[in-house]
C-alpha cells in the first residue's frame, strides 16, 4: 500500500471522479431540462428587470414597478388574494369537515374530491363564463332577482370589478382548500377526542385545547397556498374583465402582448420579479408552517 505509484494514485482519482459522475448521472436529464425550461426563463426575467432597452444596468424599472398605477395594482392584487384566501380557507375547511363526517367510501366523498380536483385545477376560463351566465347583466340569478324587484346592477353590484372577481375566485379557492386541508383533518386521531372526553373535556375544550392548536398550522399553511394561488391567477380575471381591473398579472400580460409603448418591455419583467418575491416569501412561510404541522400530523 505504501509503495503506491503516482500513476496508480492518478488512476484512482480519475476512477473516483468518473464514479462520482456516473453515480449522479441519473439526475442529469432532470437538471438540464429544468435548467433550460424553468431556470433560463426565470434568470432572463430577473436580469431584464435590471436592464434598460439597450441592456445597460438600471434600477428604473424596479422603482417604476412600485409607483403609481403599478404600485396600486400590487396593492389590489394582494388585497384580492388575501380576501379570497381567508374566505376560501374558512369555507373550505368547513366543507372538508362536513364531507369527512360522511361514510368513508361513500359516493359523496368521491364526488366532492373529483369535483374539487376539477374545479381547483381546471377553473379559469370555464368558471368565468359560468359566472357571467349566473351573475352577469343578463345572468340567470340577476334576472331572477330582478323579477323579485331587486336590481343588483342598479344597486351598484358589478361582476366585472373587484367584488365580482372575488366571488369567482372563492369558487376555485374553496375546492383547493378542500384538497390541501383534508389530509390534515384525516390525520386527527379519534383516540385524542376519546381521551379528552374520558378526562371530562367538553366539546368546546377539545376544540380549544387539542384540535384547534393541532390544526392551526396546517390551516394557516393552506391559507398561504391559497393566497399564492389567487395572486398568480391570470386567466380567470382576464376572461372575466378583459383586463379592466388592474391586477399585477393582467398588467404584465398587457405589457408583454405589446399593448403599450415598446420601451416598457422590461417593466413587465420588473413587475414579474416583484411577483416572484411576494410568492417566494409566502411559500417560505408556508414551508415553515408545514414543518410545524408535520410534527403532529405524520
Amino acid at each position: 500500500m505504501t509503495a503506491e505509484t503516482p500513476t496508480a494514485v492518478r488512476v484512482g482519482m480519475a476512477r473516483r471522479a468518473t464514479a462520482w459522475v456516473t453515480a449522479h448521472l441519473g439526475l442529469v436529464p432532470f437538471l438540464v431540462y429544468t435548467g433550460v425550461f424553468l431556470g433560463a426563463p426565470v434568470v432572463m426575467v430577473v436580469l431584464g428587470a435590471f436592464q434598460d432597452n439597450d441592456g445597460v444596468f438600471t434600477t428604473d424599472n424596479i422603482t417604476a414597478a412600485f409607483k403609481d398605477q403599478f404600485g396600486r395594482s400590487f396593492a389590489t392584487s394582494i388585497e384580492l388574494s388575501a380576501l379570497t384566501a381567508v374566505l376560501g380557507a374558512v369555507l373550505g375547511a368547513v366543507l372538508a369537515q362536513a364531507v369527512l363526517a360522511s361514510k368513508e367510501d361513500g359516493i359523496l366523498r368521491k364526488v366532492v374530491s373529483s369535483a374539487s380536483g376539477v374545479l381547483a385545477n381546471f377553473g379559469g376560463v370555464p368558471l368565468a363564463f359560468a359566472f357571467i351566465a349566473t351573475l352577469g347583466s343578463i345572468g340567470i340569478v340577476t334576472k331572477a332577482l330582478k323579477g323579485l324587484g331587486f336590481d343588483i346592477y342598479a344597486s351598484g353590484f358589478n361582476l366585472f370589478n373587484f367584488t365580482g372577481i372575488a366571488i369567482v375566485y372563492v369558487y376555485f379557492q374553496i375546492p383547493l382548500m378542500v384538497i390541501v386541508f383534508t389530509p390534515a383533518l384525516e390525520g386527527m386521531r379519534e383516540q385524542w377526542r376519546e381521551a379528552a372526553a374520558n378526562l371530562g373535556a367538553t366539546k368546546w375544550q377539545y376544540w380549544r385545547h387539542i384540535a384547534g392548536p393541532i390544526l392551526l398550522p396546517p390551516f394557516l399553511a393552506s391559507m398561504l397556498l391559497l393566497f399564492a394561488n389567487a395572486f398568480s391567477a391570470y386567466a380567470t380575471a382576464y376572461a372575466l374583465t378583459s383586463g379592466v381591473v388592474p391586477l399585477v398579472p393582467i398588467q404584465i400580460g398587457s405589457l408583454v402582448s405589446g399593448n403599450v409603448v415598446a420601451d416598457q418591455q422590461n417593466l413587465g419583467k420588473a413587475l414579474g420579479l416583484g411577483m416572484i418575491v411576494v410568492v417566494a416569501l409566502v411559500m417560505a412561510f408556508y414551508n415553515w408552517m408545514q414543518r410545524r404541522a408535520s410534527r403532529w400530523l405524520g
Partner: protein
Amino acid sequence: MSKAFRWLILSLFGLYFLVPLAASVEFSLRDVNDTHSFNTWGKLLDEPGLFETLGTSLWVAFGTVALTLILMVPTVSWVHLKHPKLRRLVEGVSLLPLVIPPIVLVNGVLVVFRDAPEVISGTPVILVFEYVVLALPFTYRTLDAGLQAIALPTLVEAARSLGASWTTVLLRVIIPNIRSAVFGAAFLNLALVLGEYTLASILLMNTFPVWTVSTGQSEAGVSVAVSLLALFVAFLLLFVLSVVTGRRKATLGATQGKS
C-alpha cells in the same frame, strides 16, 4: 356536528357550486326572444376552429403527459433507489414552479426562445416543454408518494438478481407497482393542459382554451356550452379514476387483512 346541521351545510355548498353550472346550462340553451332550444348545442359541430383547436390541445396534452412520465418516472425512481439524500434537491426544484407565476414564466420564455428554431418557438411544441414544467410540483408529489408506498429496493433487487435489465425493471416492475400514481399524474397533466390559458394566449398559440375565450366575445352561448362540456368530461375522468383506484385500495386492504 349534528346530522341535520351537516346536511344543511352540504346543501348550501352544493347550491353555491351548482347554481353557476346550472346557469351555464340555461345560458347555453337560450334562443332569441326569451325562448329555449338546443340550437347552440346543435351548431357546435359546425363551429369553425373548434375541432382544430381541440386537436391541438389534445396532442399538446398527450405530448405533455408522455414527456412528463419519461422525464420524471426514471428520475424520481432513481433518486429513491440510489440517492435518498438528493430527494430534497429534486423536490425543491420540482416545487419551484409554485413560486413562479405562469405569467412571469412566459415573460422569460419569450426572451429565451425568441431566436430558437421555428419548430420550437413557432409551434405548440414550446407549450409541451413548458407545461411539463407547470405540472412538475404535482407530478413530483404524486410519484414520490407512490414510490414511498412500495418496497422499492426489495422489488428492484429481486428483479435484478433474476437478471432483469434496468429498462425491464423500470417498465415491468416499477411502473406497474405505482400505476395509480402514474395515472393520477397523467390525468392532472391532461386537465392542466386542457384548461391552461396564460401561456398559450401570450405565446399566441391557438389552443382550445384560447379559442373558447375568443369565441366568447362574439358567441357567448357557444363558449359557455363547450366550457361546460370540458368541465364535465374532466370531472368524469377524475371520478372514474377515484372509483377505480379506491376499489383497488379496498381489495388490497382486504387481502392484507386476511393474511
